[in-house]
């Protein structure tokens, strides 16, 4: 027995002293774990507890335990279902478009050509730009119906003028998100392509494969686990998208671009409805964890591929 365990065995509070002993034995790991538990796990446990209460910050005197009442309310209320649908559309189309474009970009910069490093640097820049700045820049200089470059280009080739954020607000938001996430996916897929040896690709050429055959039968199967990684990480982050919506449409017009994080934000910081907002928060966490558990299964496989 170590000193810590002896001390632990003698003290009259076994749980407390057990914890103290564990900290002493795990001095390097314990601070980080304790920090993470206090700042992430404990608040989430409180969110679950809040989700079972009827509690509005403006009328705290009416607070009471409400069981699963909040969950029944939100699942039968239009705003939650509507935000869920917006979230699914936004996430699915953004991830799909970013993945397809990301594959194209990765293939494009995987070959050698003059200035390849500069092009790759240009391509990853959208991912580094502060999301609120990206959203404002797109909304004004590019997608504004009167002064924006996109509408100017469209009208100069005879297409109609479109007020993107009034008429097709989701398309506007998806465009900005895809612009930011396609480079992210490119980076991961590029790492995948570079792990594919040139000999394999050369061999397929020698065997008479056309470029499209080579891509379909050699490159795509090799990229499968990298693509899964892109989809999972993209889904987890885009599901939680908030900045772009806040800066462009503020959830509108009406609730056409209100996704779940934005609805929760409105519930707490506009309506002060802690109970219902917490229940929605718990449901979002459940959805994200379903995806995250796939990610965790995928991880060992990816790491093996990189050894």
């Amino acid at each position, binding site marked *: 027995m170590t000193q810590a365990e002896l001390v632990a065995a003698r003290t009259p509070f076994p749980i407390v002293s057990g914890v103290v002993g564990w900290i002493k034995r795990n001095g390097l790991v314990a601070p980080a774990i304790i920090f*993470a538990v206090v700042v992430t796990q404990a608040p989430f446990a409180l969110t679950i507890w*809040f989700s079972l209460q009827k509690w509005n910050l403006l009328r705290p005197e009416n607070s009471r335990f409400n069981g699963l009442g909040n969950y029944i309310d939100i699942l039968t209320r239009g705003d939650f279902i509507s935000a869920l649908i917006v979230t699914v559309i936004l996430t699915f189309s953004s991830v799909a478009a970013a993945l397809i474009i990301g594959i194209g970009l990765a293939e494009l910069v995987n070959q050698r050509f003059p200035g390849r490093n500069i092009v790759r640097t240009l391509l990853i*820049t959208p991912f580094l730009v502060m999301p609120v700045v990206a959203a404002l820049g797109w909304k004004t200089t590019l997608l504004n119906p009167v002064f924006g470059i996109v509408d*100017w280009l469209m009208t100069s080739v005879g297409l109609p003028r479109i007020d993107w954020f009034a008429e097709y607000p989701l398309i506007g938001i998806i465009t900005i998100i895809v612009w930011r996430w396609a480079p992210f996916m490119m980076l991961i897929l590029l790492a995948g392509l570079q792990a594919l040896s040139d000999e394999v690709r050369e061999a397929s050429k020698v065997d008479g494969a056309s470029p499209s055959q080579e891509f379909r039968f050699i490159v795509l199967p090799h990229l499968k686990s990298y693509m899964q*990684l892109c989809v999972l990480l993209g889904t987890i982050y885009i599901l939680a998208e908030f900045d772009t919506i806040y800066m462009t449409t503020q959830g509108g017009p009406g609730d056409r671009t209100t996704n779940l994080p934005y609805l929760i934000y409105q519930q707490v910081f506009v309506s002060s409805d802690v109970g219902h907002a917490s229940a929605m928060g718990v449901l979002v966490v459940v959805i994200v964890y379903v995806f995250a558990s796939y990610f965790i299964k995928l991880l060992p496989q990816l790491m093996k591929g990189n050894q």
Partner: protein
Amino acid sequence: MAMTGRLALGSRQRAKVATRQGSAVERAGTLRAIVAWVVGLLFFFPVFYLIVTGFKTEAAAVLLPPQLFPFGDQFPAGFTPTLENYKAIFDRGFGPYFLNSIIVVVASSVLIVALALPCAYALVWRRGKRSSNVMFFFLSTKFLPAVGVIIPIFIIARDLHAIDNLATLVVMYTAMNLAIAIWLLRSFFDEIPRDVIQAARVDGADLRMEMQYVAIPMIFPGLVATVFICTIFAWNEFFFAVNLMATKGATVPMFMIGFVTSEGLFWAKLAAAGTLAMMPVVVLGWLAQKQLVRGLSMGAVK
């Protein structure tokens, strides 16, 4: 560049003796290079245009066809640059926002390194039965969306009078990036050859010496990249900032809220503010590009 120059020369020499099929391959390569450049410039254009708009007058900022080059009016699509907007941004009080962001990012980076470095080291070189459980515990914290914790954090911060206090953001950003830092540093520590650590142990190094004189110097570039990546995420973070800060503790992304309703009136100032807001971490990201993919995938992809 010297490399690519030599390659181009090589391929030109090869082209001389190439068959017709060879020159077709060559042409396809040139075409793909041109496409790559065009696509790269297209993706970069919104950033480029924001930067140049920041140097225009408000009247020039909304002109179409757009003016693109700050080389004076005589130049095709050119304009005469001005620093008026940058002056106006600082007159509007951009300085304190910038300072707040720097304080938060530096403080949370220090805290992250202090927590993550020993933890990651122990997970690789003091491996125990539960090490992989610990790793997955941290991974799971990364997947907890902000909306899952914001409500209790907000209420606790309110009750502790910690709303609008930068320390609150420091704690949140540390928690947000801790998992990335631990996983990244773990992947760097993992690359140290086993013999090196064992040699240090045979020579009688204790844990502190082993880390201080052997392991940390070996992964130092990785440590710098880790700090860069955490800095990028913390600098750009908006959700916690907008919900937990107000006036005193407002960070750079919150400065941009003032431009949400500017209907064509303040684009040049918006662009100048946006340029100042984004450039610090854009540059960090360029510097850390090689490690970026590893950071984004929690160290899974190298």
